[in-house]
């Protein structure tokens, strides 16, 4: 099986470290994790890696937000085959709807556990029906 690559776009260092811990687990053995700390950096990395297995995109970031990232991708028709997962909170149901409409493959609500993320990615891998996780 080809090595899996994931991209995390989030302005919080804490969250990057969380993702790092999650992707160090056995379920993700051999996977590579790319880190971007703002929307623009994230978009640049996204452009450069059509082989990404999935993208975790935070909703609320200064500068380019998660929704703006999705809208730009849709406008440019860039890598439509890469699943982009919008990371949201329980107070943003409208953003979730808009995110899906803008091309997000699924949304992941905070707080999530490593298990949530694992099963979501499993769905992405097998291109199964997207399962959006809510707490």
């Amino acid at each position: 099986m080809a090595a899996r690559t994931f991209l995390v776009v989030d302005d919080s260092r804490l969250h990057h470290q969380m993702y790092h811990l999650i992707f160090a687990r056995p379920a993700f053995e051999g996977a590579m994790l790319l880190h971007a700390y703002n929307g623009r950096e994230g978009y640049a990395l996204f452009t450069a890696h059509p082989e990404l297995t999935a993208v975790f995109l935070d909703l609320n970031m200064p500068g380019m937000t998660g929704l703006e990232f999705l809208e730009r991708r849709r406008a440019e028709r860039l890598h439509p085959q890469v699943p982009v997962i919008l990371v949201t909170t329980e107070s943003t149901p409208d953003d979730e709807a808009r995110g899906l409409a803008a091309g997000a493959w699924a949304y992941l609500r905070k707080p999530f556990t490593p298990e949530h993320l694992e099963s979501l990615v499993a769905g992405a891998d097998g291109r199964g029906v997207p399962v959006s996780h809510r707490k």
Partner: protein
Amino acid sequence: MTTLQPDHPFAALLAEFVAESAPLAEAVVERALSLERSWNRGEEDEETHAPLKGLLHTVKGNSAMMGLAPLQSLAHTLEDLALLLSREPGVRVAGGPLLVRGASLLADLVRGAATSPLPAEALRIQIEEIRAFLEGNPGAQEELRTERRQADQRQSDRRHSRQTVEISSDGAVSTIRVDSARLDQLLDSFGEAMIAHAGLRDALRPIIGRRRAGGEATQVEHALLGLERTLKRLEGALMETRLLPISTLFSRFTRQVRELARGESREVRLEVAGGDTRLDKTIIDRLGEPLVHLLTNAIIHGIEPPEERTRLGKPAEAVIALRAVQRSDRVLITVTDDGRGLDPERILVKARALGVAPTAERPSRAEIFALAFLPGLSTAERVSSLSGRGVGLDVVAGSIRALGGQVAVTSEPGRGTTFTLRMPLTVAVLRALLVQVNGERYALPLADVAETLRADDRAIHQVARQGMMTWRGQVIPVVDGGEALGGDPVADRPYCVVIRSASRHRGLLVDAVLGHYEVVVKALDPTLGRPPAVAAATILGDGRVACILDPGRIGERPADAAKDAAGAA
């Protein structure tokens, strides 16, 4: 659970959680304090609500991810409280202190999350107190969830475009966000309108002066006055848009002071007052640096180590008080510490050694402290870990003067030091008195002009080659305008302008007083160095440039302050 369980997947990240979330929680406290102060004055502060809620939202999310449910709960209730207070002005005065208390508790707990177990009782009580307040407001709970979702949506909306119109529930437009660059453009255009108006007025002067022209002249004059009044109103409105509360600056300092104090092994508390005082955005942007320098100097040189303070009978924790207050068209900012103070003797000795103070006579205390701002006088020469070299007061004074302000210092050796900054409210347009000396025109800030007199009415005595005269019961020094401005002295100049700087008055002899003008202030190009007496420049109605003088430094030569009238003894 009151602590992070060791088998929590993110247990190892606790320190990172604290590092990231503690500053956010502290920012919540500062904004809550700022809101409380505004509300106590009966003022609104629309700008702080959204950032405050955003910060709480982030702290809540982080706490939730870390499994710190009690913190998440507290942040959640504070979010609800902040929402209520932003929607219901009537409960603000009562709710403000509660918000501050809750936010302070949250900040303390976030800070200590890695080192101490969360105090379950204290948390529960605080959360219940907030909930009770929320419930005590009819309908509050019900609306809150809907409100929060709407508010969050508006918040994400705001991030989508740079210019957004925020619509309140009845559809009326309340605020518009505009790029500050746009405002600067507006201001530039306004400045050009002022110059054009000045040109028009000058060109029409002969027509208005001709009384025989009758109706026409009066019409022209009225039209001109009407234009002037409109421009003034426009100026006022434009300036308002650029005014920001100085708390945007002050709030940064609390943490900086704490860090610096820790680095220097000092115990320091920063007290801030008057954060709601408003200043032009450009001034605020550029005032940060000199203020930080003053705070740094206070911590490094002014404040004694805790053991020494205790020995001296002072509390181990020093206090630096930062205060801002508006007085007519100026803003006074004071930085006061209760440290060692400045020793006037040392300043005088050093000044004499540098040749910038008279050796024979003894200047007054006020004059000695004024010497502290001369280059080379600063006693700050240590290297410190955080700030590099202590910054000389001459640099601080220069930055402040470049903004059109003035700075003075006073001190009680052993008891403390106070710096006082006088800043103009606006930076772009200045009301000035235009004078003429040796064929050149100069602008003096009207706020610093005490009076304009005919010099021949007054007896000007020469005392030790320094002109003196009596004015309003004081004896003040008098300088020749030509000589003070690097030109030729001329006898018998007809007018004397009494100018004020810090606490001193001086008379400036000039050839003509041309009247009050509103001038557009333009900064001097750095190529011109920093000529002491010149603060800025302006373009007059006829297209020619005139220098705007700094009243405090008229008569100074570069690197030589001896000419500055210090001999009023």
